[in-house]
């Protein structure tokens, strides 16, 4: 099974993952930048497909990170994935973006039975979720995702760039203080879930915050 995975919940990344390939990865690309997704994502995907010699017809399914993440960047990936899936006529799945970091933790030597994943939510807040990990299993989401102040999070080892930003109040793992959700791990997570007969959600974005719009109050009368 060949999956094209895309995530723009923080940085922009895409990957081709397959259960036939060593370590699952066929090809991938990622940027460091969190603000230029609309420019770099499509060229990145196009180059990746060309380099790997993969055409749209070769792909079995797409998976996209549905956040949480800054809205405009998040939508870049979802709009891209939905359009590719529509044109190619392939199934599209969604996956919570923090799951990517959770899988990366599970596959590392830093793995612990219970932990947090946190990414930058701007406005001095983090997006976060709590996971448990049993040997040989995918990380299991037990709480979240939420958005909130780092100081209010449960007292557990914390992984991801959100933990790194607030290392003063979180038990940030030093090896993961810059880690962002990466499409490679998202694709591997999806592949493992689908291979075990599990299902994945659709591509509805997880905004977590309202649109910030204020309904105007009644106009004050001059009296």
């Amino acid at each position, binding site marked *: 099974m060949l999956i094209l995975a895309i995530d723009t919940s923080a940085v922009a990344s895409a990957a081709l993952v397959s259960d036939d390939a060593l370590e699952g990865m066929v090809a991938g690309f990622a940027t460091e930048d969190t603000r*230029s*997704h*609309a*420019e*770099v*994502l*499509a*060229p990145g*995907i*196009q180059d990746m*497909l060309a380099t790997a010699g993969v055409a*749209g017809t070769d792909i079995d399914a797409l998976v996209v990170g549905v956040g949480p993440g800054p*809205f*405009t960047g998040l*939508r*870049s*990936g*979802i*709009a*891209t*994935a*939905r*359009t*590719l899936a*529509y*044109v*190619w006529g392939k199934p599209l799945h969604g996956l919570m973006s923090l799951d990517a970091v959770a899988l990366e933790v599970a596959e590392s030597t830093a793995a612990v039975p219970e932990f947090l994943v946190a990414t930058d939510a701007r406005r001095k807040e983090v997006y976060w979720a709590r996971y448990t990990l049993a040997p040989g299993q995918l990380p299991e989401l037990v709480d979240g995702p939420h958005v909130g102040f780092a100081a209010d999070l449960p007292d557990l080892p914390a992984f991801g760039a959100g933990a790194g930003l607030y290392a003063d109040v979180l038990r940030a793992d030093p090896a993961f203080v810059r880690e962002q959700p990466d499409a490679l791990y998202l694709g591997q997570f999806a592949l493992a879930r689908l291979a075990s007969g599990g299902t994945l959600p659709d591509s509805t*974005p997880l*905004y977590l915050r309202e*649109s*910030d*719009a*204020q*309904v*105007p109050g009644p*106009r004050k*009368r*001059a*009296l």
Partner: protein
Amino acid sequence: MNRTQPLVLGIESSCDETGVGVVRGTTLLTNTVSSSMDEHVRFGGVIPEIASRAHLDAFIPTLDAALSDAGVRLDEVDAIAVTAGPGLAGALMVGVCAAKALAVATGKPLYAINHLVAHVGVGLLAPDGDGSAPELPANLGALLVSGGHTEILKINNITDDVVLLGSTIDDAAGEAYDKVARILGLGYPGGPAIDAVARTGNRAAIRFPRGLSQPKYMGTAEEPGKHRYDWSFSGLKTAVARCVEQFEARGEEVPVADIAAAFQEAVVDVVSAKAVLACREHGIKDVLLGGGVAANSRLRELTGQRCTSAGIRLHVPPLGLCTDNGAMVAALGAQLVMAGKEPSGIAFAPDSSLPVTAVSLPA
């Protein structure tokens, strides 16, 4: 690529309309639009984040409906065109990302185009089914009035030479309508609400200010002032608010219809006067009206009268093509293809303040 009668798909997402249009050369095949206007009603104006969320969910259904309405398949399309700006940054991003993905998945060339010039592009669509390709008059101007913009353009060549003669320096005219409608308790969108109520009011009952009309801003034809062809509506909105407060402070009933009519007259008077002035002083003989406010009865009436007196022909496209839509994007895209312009590629960035001098973005 077929450059004589190109089949072009256009995508628009710069404000609150998700539009997908398809044209073949100058023939319109579909103009499919999904609007999030209803979601903005309780806020009394377009909320960018709400519009962006709506674009994301509306895009694929709108694309699908457009293709089936036009009876074309994506593999038949010669080129894709998308609004790259100006407009709301987050809203533009959705259409641009979708258009780029469409280009990647189909291998079709992509043109990143200017929304304001696209409003003029609809003037090049042949009237229903008659197949004759209209040509733009040589001395063409365009007056664009909507919730997002108020501009007067001179079109020397629609594919590569467009000049901005004047624009609003603060609110768009349509935005002023929305704000004043809110002050008067007339609901959203303000344009149709005020236009309807104004019919029963006396437009001479109150004299509201015409922004940037003083000699120091206007100058003379020989020595034009800095804002000779520019507009400003924020002072007008404040004047309306103050007027309403004065009636209330005196314990009198607010004459809503008179205020609406007088406000509308102030907008329409200054918009049409400055537009006609700009046309006369730049040798413009034909002017195309675009943007949602083109539906306004008084704007059409007064602009029409003043154009006629000045020997200028006013062209008003069907309203569905005046408001933001994908057909206008496709229409301009087809012009670019037919003129031999090269596509923009897929690495460009949307630009929320794209100048009209950039008709399409270079690769």
